[in-house]
């Protein structure tokens, strides 16, 4: 029985493929044996300077192989790793530190300034010192034997509505369970090469990292700067013989819109997974046309339920303006769609997506109030304690009994007395040929449905409204449009809705 991530690594990739490349970036490459060696040096260093267990340790490093060695080193030390986005404003890093009160921060010469005036100097340690430290076999054995499956593995920070970031705590068991499901469902093998796009502070990367430790495949960390250029992304995929992707749709959309797939001769991609945003069928159909032998899968899940709880393997044709299902629950997860009265919805009735099972986060670190708001007793079970997570996302069952994503509960607006899902408008707009990428927001003070779009040319409002009339009701048509040269993206690669709101709507 595997009780923690160390078991997963040592019983699988390390045992079966010790000398095979595990992680690779532009500059560095490590084998599974190297991971075993370096991460235990890091763990020994941590434990020799502080006798701590189950404490958060923040990691401030540039994205790359060393980042991952540090995560595993912290795991071997029996503590919780917390990846920090080093490009975010110092104020946000301060907020995260005030929530966590971390025991240690692991930095390098380039990143130390981010914490140097915030944390005491004895709490700041340098990766270079850890990597060359001697391995303390005795203490590592004791720690490993004492890690239980419900001990926290990592904390990822999401933005909080009050401006205070929320630290989502995920334990070993949830990741073990998720990775076993990924391994079986998508048949990853040691032959696979995964191209990593997701930043390590974004939970899509959890699949990339741990399926590597399970299957013995290789994780290639893509160059972040290339993501703005579809031609470079495709070149990098080909040059590195990539077989599998788990990316946010925005990147796949920009590649499809570039028309480069038509001439792309590399046919090595066999698994194309995506999550984090809605994937429009218009662009997915382009991918499917030019990669007919690849498996495409739409996954869904908030950080609070360990990456994904629903999935759909694309198995039938879709029109460009049809929405793609988010599918059925992953193994060992149960997804319930509840209406406002906390009852199961009927077919086609929209309700909130709620999740129960081992995938649930342990809650928000040092934030019992926010935890209690969304991790609640299952309203359908009054007999024994059982938590569910309210995602704040809306969905319904289609006639295949697949779950369809509608949008955020917060994206449901009341406009001129009508209840409207902004996601439904986005799906309709995505079918307009001239539009490549888009986002719909609501201006509450001016009562306007605002469409932002990119495309080959600027379109007028009347043209767009006429095109949409056959797809959505008149009251849901956009009333204001903005043509953008480029869609702003967040560091995760998703559309930056907050920035659009701030710059164009000003609320």
């Amino acid at each position: 029985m595997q009780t923690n991530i160390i078991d997963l690594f040592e019983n699988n990739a390390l045992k079966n493929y010790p000398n095979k490349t595990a992680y690779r970036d532009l500059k560095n490459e490590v084998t599974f044996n190297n991971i075993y060696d370096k991460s235990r040096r890091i763990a020994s260093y941590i434990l020799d300077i502080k006798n701590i267990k189950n404490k958060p340790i923040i990691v401030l490093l540039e994205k790359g192989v060393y980042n991952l060695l540090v995560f595993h080193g912290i795991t071997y030390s029996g503590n919780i790793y917390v990846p920090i986005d080093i490009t975010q404003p110092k104020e946000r890093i301060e907020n995260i530190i005030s929530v966590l009160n971390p025991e240690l921060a692991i930095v390098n010469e380039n990143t130390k300034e981010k914490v140097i005036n915030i944390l005491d100097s004895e709490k700041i340690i340098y990766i270079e010192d850890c990597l060359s430290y001697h391995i303390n076999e005795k203490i590592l054995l004791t720690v490993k034997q004492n890690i239980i499956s419900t001990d926290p593995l990592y904390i990822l920070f999401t933005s909080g509505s009050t401006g205070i970031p929320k630290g989502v705590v995920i334990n070993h068991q949830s990741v073990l369970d998720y990775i076993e499901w990924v391994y079986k469902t998508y048949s990853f093998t040691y032959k696979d090469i995964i191209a990593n796009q997701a930043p390590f502070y974004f939970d899509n990367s959890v699949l990339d990292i741990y399926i590597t430790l399970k299957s013995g495949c290789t994780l290639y960390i893509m160059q972040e700067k290339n993501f703005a250029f579809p031609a470079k992304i495709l070149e990098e995929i080909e040059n590195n013989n990539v077989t599998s992707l788990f990316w946010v749709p925005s990147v796949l959309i920009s590649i499809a819109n570039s028309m480069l797939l038509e001439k792309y001769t590399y046919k090595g991609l066999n698994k194309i997974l995506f999550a984090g945003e809605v994937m429009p069928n218009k662009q997915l159909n382009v991918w499917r046309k030019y990669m007919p032998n690849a498996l495409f899968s739409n996954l869904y899940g908030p950080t609070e339920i360990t990456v994904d709880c629903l999935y759909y393997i694309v198995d039938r044709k879709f029109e460009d303006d049809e929405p793609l299902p988010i599918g059925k629950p992953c193994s060992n997860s149960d997804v319930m769609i509840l209406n406002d009265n906390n009852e199961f919805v009927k077919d086609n009735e929209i309700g909130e997506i709620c999740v129960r099972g081992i995938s649930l986060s342990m809650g928000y670190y040092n934030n019992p109030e926010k935890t209690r708001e969304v991790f609640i007793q299952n309203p359908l079970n009054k007999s024994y304690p059982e938590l569910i997570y309210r995602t704040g996302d809306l969905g319904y069952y289609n006639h295949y009994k697949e779950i369809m994503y509608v949008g955020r509960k917060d994206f449901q607006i009341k406009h001129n007395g009508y209840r409207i899902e902004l996601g439904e408008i986005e799906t309709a707009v995505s079918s307009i040929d001239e539009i490549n990428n888009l986002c719909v927001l609501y201006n509450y003070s001016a009562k306007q449905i605002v469409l932002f779009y990119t495309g080959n040319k600027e379109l007028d409002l009347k043209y767009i409204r006429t095109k949409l009339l056959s797809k959505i009701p008149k009251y849901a048509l956009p009333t204001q449009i903005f043509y953008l040269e480029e869609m702003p993206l967040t560091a995760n690669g998703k559309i930056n809705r907050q920035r659009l709101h701030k710059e164009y709507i000003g609320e």
Partner: protein
Amino acid sequence: MVTNLIEYFENTTVNLNAEKTAVIDNDKEYYFKYIRDNSKKLATYLLFYNIAVYNQPTAVFLDKSVNVFA
């Protein structure tokens, strides 16, 4: 990953040892497949007549015997 006891029972025991003795009751031997088959019959009966509801307790009033397992 094994997620429930049915998987555990079927994958680790019944499929490998279907014709091996699982229980001896009053000097009579019962194979693993006997327990599996009778458990399924009972489950089908309960579900068909809507006697058992998902995730609700079902009380068992039986003498101690092999049938308790089923």
